[in-house]
């Protein structure tokens, strides 16, 4: 039903193969696609969740991790309310790239964007990055931190719910930065037919 109160855009970034698409699929469709191919360009999913009895619509943009798509994926950062930076806890290089990603975010995203660091694949036995290392890194750069497993559905729901809660809080405090088009593409001054089909503040 078209009766959400808030609309937030969430963008997932991170190296290729860290499990961004799987996280999104797990959250939006409740499944873990084995043998998920590499994302091309950008993928899009939508999910409406309920926070404090209010409906929140999450527009989730799942970007390709591959270097060659970097230019198009960067163009999606700008309008994001939240950026989820994902790495693979069983793969040191994906963690080592985080500073580069932060630099990119710094450059292309809104500076008030909510940033969440996610260490994915906790189900793996061959962990290379201890949890506290990830936590440290997140703390140093002012990010939220969470470890997840898309395969075991661990913390996935929580991740997005917390984002929704946090963003809603920000929105309520009117702290949410004014984005172009944050009202959704077609939020007109329609003779609103009572059911509050319009989103977000204003």
């Amino acid at each position, binding site marked *: 039903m078209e009766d959400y109160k808030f609309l937030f855009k969430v963008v997932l970034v991170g190296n290729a193969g860290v499990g961004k698409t799987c996280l999104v699929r797990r959250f939006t469709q409740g499944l873990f696609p084995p043998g998920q191919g590499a994302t091309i360009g950008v*993928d899009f999913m939508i999910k409406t969740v309920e926070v404090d009895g209010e409906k929140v619509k999450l527009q989730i943009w799942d970007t390709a991790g591959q270097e060659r798509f970097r230019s*198009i994926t960067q*163009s999606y950062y700008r309008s994001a309310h939240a950026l989820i930076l994902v790495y693979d806890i069983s793969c040191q290089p994906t963690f080592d790239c985080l500073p580069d990603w932060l630099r990119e975010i710094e450059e292309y995203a809104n500076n008030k964007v909510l940033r969440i660091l996610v260490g994915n694949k906790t189900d793996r036995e061959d962990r290379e990055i201890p949890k506290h290392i990830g936590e440290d890194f997140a703390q140093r750069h002012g990010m939220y931190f969470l470890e997840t497993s898309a395969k075991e559905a661990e913390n996935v729901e929580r991740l997005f719910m917390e984002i929704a809660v946090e963003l809603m809080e920000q929105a309520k405090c009117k702290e949410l930065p004014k984005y172009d088009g944050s009202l*959704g593409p*077609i939020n007109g001054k329609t003779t609103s037919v009572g*059911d509050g089909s319009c989103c977000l503040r204003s």
Partner: protein
Amino acid sequence: MSFVKCCFEGGEGQDFLDSFVQKCTDPGCCCGCCSALRPRYKRLVDNIFPASPQDGLVKSNMEKLTFYSLSSPEKLDRIGEYLFQKASRDIYRRRHGFVIIAMEAMDQLLVACHSQTLNLFVESFLKMVQKLLESTDPQLQILATQSFVRFANIEEDTPSYHRRYDFFVSKFSAMCHSNHGEPGPRDRIRLAGIQGLQGVIRKTVSDDLVENIWEAQHMDKIVPSLLYNMQSAEKYETVSCAEGGGAGGEEGEEESPPRLAEACLRDLLARASFGHIRSVLRPVLTHFDRHDLWIPTDFAVHVFKIIMFSIQAQYSYSVVEALMQQLEAGRGGVRAARAAVLAAIVGIAAGDSVGPSVLEIINNILTNLRASVARGAEKETEEKLYQEALINALGEFADHLPDYQKIDIMMFIVNKVPGAAKPSRADAMLQHILLKSLLKVGATYKTTELSKAFPAAFLEALLRLSSATEPSTRVLLQRILHTLLDRRDNVPRLAVVTLDYDAAGLSVEKCSRQDLIFISKHGYAIFSALYEGLQLESNSTENIACIYTTIALLCVELAADDTLCDLMLLILAIQQSSISNPVLSVSQQCQLQAVSISLAALLPHVAKLPRLADYIHKVVEARREECGHLLPPLQHDYRLSDPTLLPAKVPYLMMDQMAISECLKASGVECGRLQGAAPYCGGGPLQHRHSWIETGAAAGRDSLADIAAGTEPDSAASSPTLARQAPAECAGVSLEALRRAAEGGSGAERRDAAQRRRALNLAFRTAPFHHLMQVTQPKYEIQEKLEEIFRSVSEEPLLAPSLKSGPPLPDLCLY
């Protein structure tokens, strides 16, 4: 539904209930008995839905709904809102059949209704489209896109400031990158994405009040999405037709994503104004970098050609400029590829480039070349490729410019050539590269009049370079002269030194008056530069062959009685120098002999001189019997077993000056000058007779300056060989040779001086008065100069060549 229908069919005056029911949006309220109280528009909307989605839209009821919305347009927004709600519910419940019907109904309403009433309906319509796009079902996404495209084709006359296309651009771009498992649906989704983008572009570009599509945030999505689809094509065929963009839309279904993406890109570019071009180009360049699309170059060339063809012609320069700014970035291979792309497109821009932009492009290319040369030899082959590509670009560009600009460009390039007497390696390299560029440009120039092709300053610069230290550079220079001199495609026929001109099939026409004036002005400078060029120790066979071609071309192009004599003098001088120039190797001596006899044989071909032809033929026959090596073809290495066969030892096989002058006289050619002339000073009298003053004034530093400096009037410039000859021969073996040289030299010198005096007198007796006036005006005090000239001429001591000190070398190199 039938209940609703039968109870209230034709009922009027239900609208008063609207305000009451309006708030009733609870889904539970929408069915059952409550519907009896529903406002009319809702009933009409409900009625268009069949009982089962398979039955499709109820056509008759749809007509009623359409009629109703046309007659009471103020209800249109509510109808839209209601349809949207119904569809949202159906999507939620996954009843896609009904969703499709709702969308169809909205489409029909959109098309049927007048634009001024549509404004608010459109909001619901677009919400609906968005809703469908948000679903994961490809079918719905494609449906939504089709509706959106339909909407995009409608002209709205009320601006909608608040409408945003942000989501659509993002979503359509994402669809362009669909990686659906099967190729069929994947292509359809991608097609839909491209169509959607096309729709957004159409909707927004024409209207300044809506979203600015040219902003980076949109372009960064649109352009890579289009390119991504284009690059998957199997082969790239560029059509120049700029109006390919119109054919998108409905019939797009049969198209492939690459073709449609191309059409869309053309569409976009055609609408770009000057300020927007950059915003399109930047993502293009980034995309190429990111996806490593520069190599191989076909795709890059394809795309940039599309850009050039689609863009408004007056802006094409800025594409070239943008590409040029990017040239230096990137690794060697990419650089070369970019330059190749530049070469491919620069011609398209040339037609519309004007004024300073032309020189700016040239200058830019030259700067890049210089940078490349300076970067030097780290990656030689890649750098070479890069330079080649740049030079090609230059040639390509020049090819499309009008001729008068080509000359400007050549002057511009020639001024950039470093002219140091002893260039460093880098300088020599740059010299070489720039001359290559010059040759490329020169090859595109079609000479009509020599004086237009060789403005004085340009000619001077070229001739100065003809004594460059690098033999290969000198070859290039000669080739430039060839391409500029040759008007009748004679170069290939004269490329090899030969005696057999009948077979060559030369095309000869009578020399025009303008050309005669030109050659009488600049002939001396040209001839002596060529002569000097033949005297260099470092000459290879190629050098000599090239100079031969140049002189032969001059013979062909300037075939007239007036010039014959001068050419003959030059030829004889070359023959003489083969014997008298001590720095030449045996091979070079033989080659010069072959060149001079060949050139002499050419003269009767371009002018009717039967006696001369006979005489030359006799000499040739004689040589053929005894000294085959003094005849063409040129060989790289002459191994003479017998030293008595050296050119210097067979004076009886030389062309004789007196004999030749007899022959010429017999054919009615005035050749008084020929009789007295000696080694090479052939140009001297000529110059004095006609216009030594102009040459002096035009070239800036010629006889006048030299005279003022108190040196030998002019032809001294051509006697370094004499100056050097004596010591060399002394160091050599035979006293006999020395004596002969001294005698010959001084005799010649004496004749020479007498000749010069005669010529000077002649010049002052015959030169038109206004001519002299004209030249006096600028800055020379002609009176004084003339005094000096006369003094220096008459007082000139008759020095033996061995004692005479030649003027300093750099001056020699000038002419």
